[in-house]
Every structure is written in structure tokens, then in C-alpha cells.
């Protein structure tokens, strides 16, 4: 990937992160930590990887993205808005009673949202169904699902993993946002869902790793996923929860909390640096 494109994507990701902070601050609630850890992943998908058209959000042969970790809705909304699906200004209506930007993604309300999520473990199954449908249609469309590392503790994730491997859904790619944290603390302390690579490999998946905040690394992984045939791919993307906002980085406490006015200013300053 050319350095110029990396710089462009980095600049877009910076704006996507500002949208996250704006949305959560305006709502005085929401989930900044996991939104910021997925910001580069969603930026890459919406601005580089996926075959989509913001002017035709329901285009039949578009690629699909399911944000299975639906609490990270701010980053999905910010990526969609920055991509042109709706005005960036609208992010400030997040979670308000008259807004279409629900606390968790709602496909009926927001153009570009491919699946309603929020209940962890469910989005990945819908992504399997979408990938299976693409196979039945003989379509080359691809399906992506972004999931949390804590989310992997849901048994349904492994039901889905079994299904995707059995039906050889090589048009399906999960991205596991490996930020090491969930609500109650470090994933290793809560219940220890790792290791992810050998688990997915044992389930018959093609396993790739990437740095979730390095576009060259993401680019290589998504390219390799496209090349894979006969198996679904998981990209285990090592990330930093709260990435980009100094005081939120690697803090479980910033999972589901909005910044106050002073914290908001610091956050914006961090993201403008």
C-alpha cells in the first residue's frame, strides 16, 4: 500500500474518531473505548475494501458489513457519515429520542447499516447467512463481521464458526478486535477466551493476524483473506481500546462512559494533534 494512501486513510480515521467522540459526548452516553479500537478497521473497510455505494445503500450486490459488537455503533455511524451515507452533523443526535441513530445499530433506520445488532454473539450468525446467500446467488459479494474479543465468550460465536467452516464460506471474513478488555476488566481475568488463533484454526478457519492501527498491516491481511479459497477467514487484529484519546487508552473504565466537558476538550485536542 502506498504511503500516500496510508496518509489519506489515517486522516479519514482521525475524522472518524472525532465523530465518535462528538457522538458520545453529545449523547452523554455510549461506548467510546471499543469504538476507537475499531476505528481504523472500519475506516479501512468502508474507504478501501468494500464494494459499496453511499448513493445506493441497498444495492443488491454490495459487500456487507455486520458490526457484531453493536455497542461500537458510534464508529459505525461515524464511518458511514464520513463516507457520505448521511450528514456528519447528524452524529450529534446520537441516542436522542428523535434521532434515527439508536444506541445500537438498527438496519431499518439508518442507511448503510446491514444488520441490527447489540446483543453480542448474534451478528456473526447473520453474517454467515449473508455469505451463504451470496454463494447461492453465485455472487462475488463479500461479507465482513467485526466482533469483540469479549464477544467471543458467547457460545453462538462458535456455533457460527462451525457453520461457516462447514459450508466453506470463503467469502466471509470476521475481524476480531483484540483489545484485551471487556466490561468487567481484562479478558484474561474475566474468563480467558484466548487464544483465538488456535481456536479458530481448530474450527477450520483461515487465521490471519494484523495490527488494527496500521493500514499497511490491515491491507495485507484483507488482501490475503480475498485470496483464501475453501475456508472463511478471521483477522485477529491486535488493538488498543480507546486508541487515539490519551486518557481512554487501555482503560476498561472507558468502555461505556461519556467524557465530561473538560475530558471532551482533551479528547478533541488529542485527535487534532
Amino acid at each position, binding site marked *: 500500500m502506498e504511503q500516500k494512501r496510508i496518509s489519506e486513510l489515517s486522516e479519514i480515521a482521525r475524522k472518524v474518531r472525532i465523530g465518535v467522540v462528538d457522538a458520545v459526548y453529545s449523547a452523554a452516553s455510549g461506548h467510546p473505548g471499543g469504538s476507537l479500537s475499531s476505528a481504523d478497521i472500519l475506516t479501512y473497510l468502508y474507504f478501501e475494501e468494500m464494494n459499496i455505494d453511499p448513493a445506493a445503500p441497498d444495492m*443488491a450486490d454490495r459487500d456487507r458489513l455486520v458490526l457484531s459488537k453493536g455497542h461500537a455503533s458510534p464508529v459505525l455511524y461515524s464511518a458511514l457519515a464520513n463516507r457520505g451515507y448521511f450528514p456528519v452533523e447528524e452524529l450529534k443526535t446520537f441516542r436522542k429520542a428523535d434521532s434515527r441513530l439508536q444506541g445500537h445499530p438498527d438496519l431499518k433506520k439508518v442507511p448503510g447499516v446491514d444488520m*441490527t445488532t447489540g446483543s453480542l454473539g448474534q451478528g456473526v*450468525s447473520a453474517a454467515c447467512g449473508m455469505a*451463504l*446467500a451470496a454463494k447461492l446467488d453465485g455472487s462475488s459479494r463479500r461479507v465482513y463481521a467485526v466482533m469483540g474479543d469479549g464477544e467471543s465468550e458467547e457460545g453462538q460465536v462458535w*456455533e457460527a464458526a*462451525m457453520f461457516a467452516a462447514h459450508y466453506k464460506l470463503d467469502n466471509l471474513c470476521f475481524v476480531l478486535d483484540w483489545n484485551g478488555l471487556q466490561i468487567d476488566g481484562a479478558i484474561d481475568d474475566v474468563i480467558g477466551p484466548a487464544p483465538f488463533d488456535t481456536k479458530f484454526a481448530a474450527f477450520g478457519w483461515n487465521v490471519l493476524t494484523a495490527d488494527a492501527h496500521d493500514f499497511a498491516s490491515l491491507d495485507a491481511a484483507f488482501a490475503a483473506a480475498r485470496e483464501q479459497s475453501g475456508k472463511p477467514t478471521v483477522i485477529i487484529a491486535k488493538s488498543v481500546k480507546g486508541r487515539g484519546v490519551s486518557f481512554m487508552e487501555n482503560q476498561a473504565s472507558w468502555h461505556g462512559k461519556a467524557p465530561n466537558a473538560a475530558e471532551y476538550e482533551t479528547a478533541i485536542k488529542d485527535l487534532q494533534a
Partner: protein
Amino acid sequence: MADMIATRDAYGKALVEFGAKYDNLVVLDADLAAATKTEMFKKAYPDRFFDCGIAENNMIGVASGLALSGKIPFASSFAMFAAGRSFEQVRNSVGYPGTNVKIGATHGGITVGEDGATHQCLEDFALMRTIPGMTVICPADAGEARLAVQAAIEYNGPVYLRFGRMAVPALYDDTYAFSIGKGSRLVEGNDVSLIANGVEVEQALVAAELLKADGIHASVVNMATIKPLDREMVLEEAKRCGCIVTCEEHSVIGGLGAAVCEFLSETMPTPVLRVGTNDCYGRSGSAKVLLSLFGLDAAAICEKAKAAIQMKK
């Protein structure tokens, strides 16, 4: 008897029949294809049948993803697992996004028989009925089951269909027209209205015959659609008969009886007695024995009918 057919058999057959007409119809099962009868579809259209293994929650999500890509998926398992285990998947991945998923749940009710309480789902109407936008149907015979499958295919939105394991007689001939949300009156009468669904329609018909001996003329209505309820017909029955007995192979809590009570208490308070399981679990036994043991047979309906008439002022 030659024409005794379980509604699950009619379900399997209907999937094959309509699979020919709708090439976007796909069928999912969770390792129960032989029992749910989806294996008939599997044989006819192996490329459109997907076994999900014993993983009902994933199956519901997969169905939703298929529906969002233009397929008409039927996801099948026993009612206990489709509606019970996967309640929240149905609620959040099907009901809330309003995806065009059809849940074909077999082995509903006490007439599952010998397998006993863990497999006898007496709560599925209640669970499915609370989900906004969900249509809930329990056909009474093979012909109606076939028509209900067709109606579900032609309707765009989530549908829960409950089929039974036990063979039941044909109640309708080919002239019967089924529509979602419409009850059908099988017997005219003005003294008491028996509003039933599923296997209980047959029991209600027998009860109506027995009641004649006591000079009681019961109306019998098959209310195959529990949601949306045919309010017009319930109101008509309440006005004409002045009392109602609901009959279902389900808990008295939350099902057809509850739906009728909820509606009438707000529009035209009318005595309603509910035949159903009384807030209890099932048990092993033959279907027929269980129907009488749990107070779901014609004799039990007759008793309730007389008591309901006594409640009329």
C-alpha cells in the same frame, strides 16, 4: 384411519411443493430433519437445505442473514428449542429488524407424548406473541398446515408456525380458504363459543357433539392465527354466545386464551374459561392419555363449557 396426518408431515410436504414454485425458498434445520419432516425438502432440493447442527441460536441468525439477502428461509426445530432456547435470537435478530424469516416449529404441546416435559413446549405462543410484528399460527389439520405454509411464504415478515407430532383427522376439504389473522367457524351455535387451535379444534368438535345431548348448542371456531388475533370474530362470538371457552395445547398463561381475555376485557367483558395446561410441566405418556390427564380432552372442554354458561348473567 386413512386420513390421519400430523401437521408436521403436511409441513414437510408443503415445503417440497412450494419449493418448486419459489426458488428462493431455503430450509434450515438443527439436526432434527427426520422429526420435523424437513428431510423431505432436503431430498427434493439438497442444494437449498442447510443443516446447522445442534445450534439453534446460530440457525436463527443465519436465517436472518439469508432473508436480508432475498431468500425466504424456513428455520426448523422443535418448538422448545426454536421458540424457547432461541427466544432472544428471534426477538433481536428476526423480530426487531423485521426480517422475512419463517420459523417452522414442530412438536409443540403436550401431544409430543413419550419424550416428556423437556420436549413438550407449552410456552411458545406466549413467547412468540410478545414479540412485536411476529405472526403466530398453529394449524389444526394437514390441509390448513399446507395453506399456512403458503400464506407464510406469500407474507413478507416474520412468522412463527407451530406444527404437531400427533396425527390428526382432516377437518377441511379443498374449498377451505385460509388467511392469516382470520378465524374459521366450523359449527354454528349460540350457547357457548369454543375457540380453539391446533389439536384442540378436534377436541372442541367432539365436545360440541357431546354438549348437544344436554341441549347445549356450542359454536366452534378454529383460531389458527393467535397473532394477529381475529378480533372481529372474537367479538362476534362474545356478543352472540355470551360466554367463551378457549382451548389450546399450551399453558393457560400467555397463549390463545390469554389473547382472547386481553382483548375482551378491554372491549366487551365476557366470561371466558381457558382450557390449557394449568401452569405446570408435562410428562411422559401417550398423546391421547396426556390430553385427558392434563384436562385438554373433549370431556374437559364440556365441563368448562357448562361452567362458562353458568357464569352468564
